């Protein structure tokens, strides 16, 4: 017991000091809340690269609300890690397709961007997931509004059902209180910039492999929606009741149907190409 006390006396202060340092010296590559996430391991190579390119696949890091379970099906993510969903495998597999199929000069690794810094203005295309859990301070909402109105593009993905939609709107209405959200038609230019995507269908997450269901919660019907600027250009592309990130992430899994993965890649490439041209 005595030895335990001695060890505790040494370890506890060290642990506390480490925690303070970790909190104060927050790294871009670590979430601002809680311990490090297992996917930051080197399984997919370093998450940051000094490689310079025209296009950086940018993932939005936001502060997640704490009154939610924080995750979709099955994985039980801890509080605060919603923005990390499918990271970084989905990003990197998508970048492989982007670099192979288009003339976009893109970096092979992803970039994490925050709304608490003007650095986001250097990345005019941003991807966000689990947006039912996002929260913004007034300053962050204002920065995102300015980012979008100046020419930035935001794609949101992986939120399902009525409750998620309502929670998504809480954040979105802080950014754009009045702008209408409209359903996109087949004829919209965003579905024809690179690939003509006429018939779209619901793209499920990996849970489809286990359950055989294409939907989650009460999100039975896929919603392809958007918010436009004053000139009619899409600023926010909303993929509701679907999970493109999982489709990119598990495209290499034999059990995950190819048709879902293919559609997800085509949608993603069209959205990026639209963001680079409009």
């Amino acid at each position: 017991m005595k030895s335990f006390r001695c060890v505790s006396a040494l370890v506890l202060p060290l642990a506390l000091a480490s925690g303070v340092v970790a909190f104060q010296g927050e790294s871009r590559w670590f979430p601002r809340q809680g311990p490090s996430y297992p996917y930051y391991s080197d399984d997919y190579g370093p998450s940051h690269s000094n490689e310079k390119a025209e296009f950086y696949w940018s993932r939005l890091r936001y502060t997640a609300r704490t009154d939610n379970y924080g995750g979709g099906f099955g994985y039980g993510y801890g509080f605060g890690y919603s923005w990390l969903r499918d990271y970084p495998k989905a990003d990197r597999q998508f970048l492989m397709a982007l670099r192979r199929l288009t003339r976009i000069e893109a970096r092979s690794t992803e970039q994490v961007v925050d709304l608490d810094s003007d650095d986001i203005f250097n990345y005019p295309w941003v991807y966000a997931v689990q947006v039912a859990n996002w929260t913004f301070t007034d300053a962050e909402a204002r920065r995102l509004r300015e980012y979008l109105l100046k020419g930035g593009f935001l794609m949101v993905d992986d939120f399902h059902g009525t409750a998620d939609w309502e929670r998504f709107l809480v954040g979105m209405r802080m950014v754009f209180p009045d702008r209408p959200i409209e359903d996109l038609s087949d004829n919209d230019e965003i579905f024809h910039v690179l690939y003509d995507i006429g018939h779209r269908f619901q793209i499920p997450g990996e849970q489809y492999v286990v359950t055989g269901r294409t939907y989650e919660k009460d999100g039975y019907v896929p919603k392809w929606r958007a918010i436009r600027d004053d000139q009619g250009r899409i600023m926010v592309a909303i993929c509701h009741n679907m999970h493109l990130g999982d489709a990119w992430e598990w495209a290499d899994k034999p059990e995950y149907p190819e048709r879902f993965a293919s559609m997800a890649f085509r949608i993603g490439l069209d959205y990026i190409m639209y963001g680079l041209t409009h």
Partner: protein
Amino acid sequence: MGAPTPSREIGVPGAPGSRFVREMFELLFKYPAAVFSRGRFVLLGGWPKWVLGVLALLALAGLGWQTYSRLRRQSHSLKNWQAGVIWALESLLICLLLLLLWQPAMVVAELKPQQNIVAVLIDDSRSMGIRDGSASREQQAAAALRNGVLAKLQERFQTRLYRIDTQLTRIDSLEDITDATAPATHIGASLKQLARDTSDLPIGAVVLLSDGADNAGGIDLDAISALRNRHLPVHTVGFGPETVSPDVEINDAVLAPRALADSRVSATVSFHQSGYAGQKGRLTAREGDKMLASRDITFAGDGKMQMENLLFNAGEAGAKAIEFGLEPMPGERNPLNNRVVRLVHVDSEKRRILYVEGEPRWEYKFIRRAEDDDKLVQIVSMLRTTENKIYRQGISGPDELADGFPNRAEDLFTYQGLMIGSVEAGYFTPAQQDLIREFVDRRGGGLLWLGGHSSLADGVWGGSSLVDLLPVILPNKKDTFHRATATAELTPIGADSLICRLVDDRQSNLERWKKLPYLMDYQEAGTPKPGAAVLAQMNAGGRKLPMLITENYGRGRTAVLATSGTWRWKMSQPLGDTTHDMFWQQLLRWLVSDTPGRVVASASSQTLLDDGHIRLFADVSDETYNAAPGADVEAHVMGPDGITAMVDMTPVADKPGSFQADWTAEKPGSYVAQLTAAQNGKELGEDVLDFQRLDGVAENFHTEQNRDLLERLAAQTGGRYWRPEELSKLADEIPYSEAGITMSETKQLWNLPIVFLAILGLRAAEWLLRRRWGIV
């Protein structure tokens, strides 16, 4: 008119001095200078001239021998050069005396008394009504003639009186001159008319009393030739001060005759002043009652030409009469010369730019967004999204650019500008490269290269057939494109360029550029070619590299923007900042605004002062922009009070595709000429030209005496410029003329005062030198 101010003859070198010289000349040489300038030198003595030469040589030799032998013997200290000076003085004296023995004289033609006519012309235009003291210039001229000058002339000649304004009118007496109300003076035309109307009369000389204000812009060669053919000397008498003070006068306002709607226009206003050096003035540009722009200026020194720029917005489409003015200064003598009106045709026809981009990138997106707000410039783009896919935007229909970059002139030449992004030169076939060259050279289009990792040297453009079109000599290496930040700044040329003008004030604009966010990347563009203009440069890695370089090539223009990172000017500046959009709109408007159409109209002058004659020109091309000499071209002119006319234009010899027509605008006001061309029943195109006739305005300018014009006229015709106070001697000089009925007069020279002074001077100089050198 305010109280008169004594004239200040600043800048008239030698005016009083030349009078002194003239008077001294006549004192020493006994005869007027005209006798020597127009006469012929002769020796009246009966002995042969060679005898004079032989005697002179003998005298020189004898004096030389005497000087050398006698003087050197007498004084051994005498130096050679001193002996030479003595010899020269004695020799000159002997030669002069020998010359006098041969009786030198001048033979000069002289008008026969009472058999010749002297034409006296009095300027009757409005500027002669300006009062320089208690009387107007015209009254001063009439008074000078009445106070003896006319009477002295009439003692020796017949006289004819005329008044001149836009034409020559004979009058019977000085009472017939008007009150100097004529709106203009055409001195050259009036003199030509005089020479023509009096071709059968013995006119011996012309006396012109004027202030030299000529609205035709000078005296043309035809008028001078007509006078010289008849050997008619014109004696000019200048009235009016040679400098009006205090006064401010605008000399000119220069600006492009055409502009795109809602674009920034730069005008260069030149002016001079007297009496306000160092004081502040206000330069304005107005359209009717609407103030377009104004700025404070500081006047330079008296009489110095000053040039200032003024920027204003062209506004909506249509013909605009822009009045440039300097607000009247306190006590200014003539505020009517403080403003000029210039026409600008503001065009609203949409320009189209073909933008070829080799890869999706942010610069492409943000350039397109900037141009979305420009209603007059449309970007039609073809973007290579994949190796084999091209995404087209801004096309007018599904067929446009469906086969990629145009292969035919008639397709490519429908655009006014061309932008090449991150595209290798090899993407274009040799035929397409030739087409691009013709697009700039012959069609007159604008070509802009953008930086990128497949652009410029990295795109092997240095080895392409379009290398001549580049305004830079590209580096002879690869990897010139760097994804590293750079900051931009203006060069002095760029500070004056409309492309780079983000803020109207020049200094503020320079500061604005220094505060722009950094560029995302930069490219080494190489060395600017001679004749190219570097408007902006980049600070990159401790180096200064050219960023925006422009050049004229053929009928068109080319430019390089050696970066693809200006999009940060949009994303990294506050929401609503227009810097990025404004820069690109101005750059692309520059690229296309001067690209001509298939019919280009022009005129001899867009502002007709008092004379309504105008010559209209049209350059006509077919759809491949080759000259269309067989076109039918006509001008439909519309003017004030419902004036309308259809004028057929005729081909200009030796200039295929050029047509011209003469027309006269009878009434003052604004006119519009619509020039249309057709060939084989098919319309080729049309263009619109604005012009105006202003009556009575020119006389408000150059109200000071134009002595230079009067002096040149006198010198070119063998006459002389006279000041009014010298007129008492006019009658003595006029007789020496070859015009009219003349007789030959011989003027002896032996008795000139200068001869006696020379003899005395030579002897006195020799005596003084001998005394000084001790050889007396």
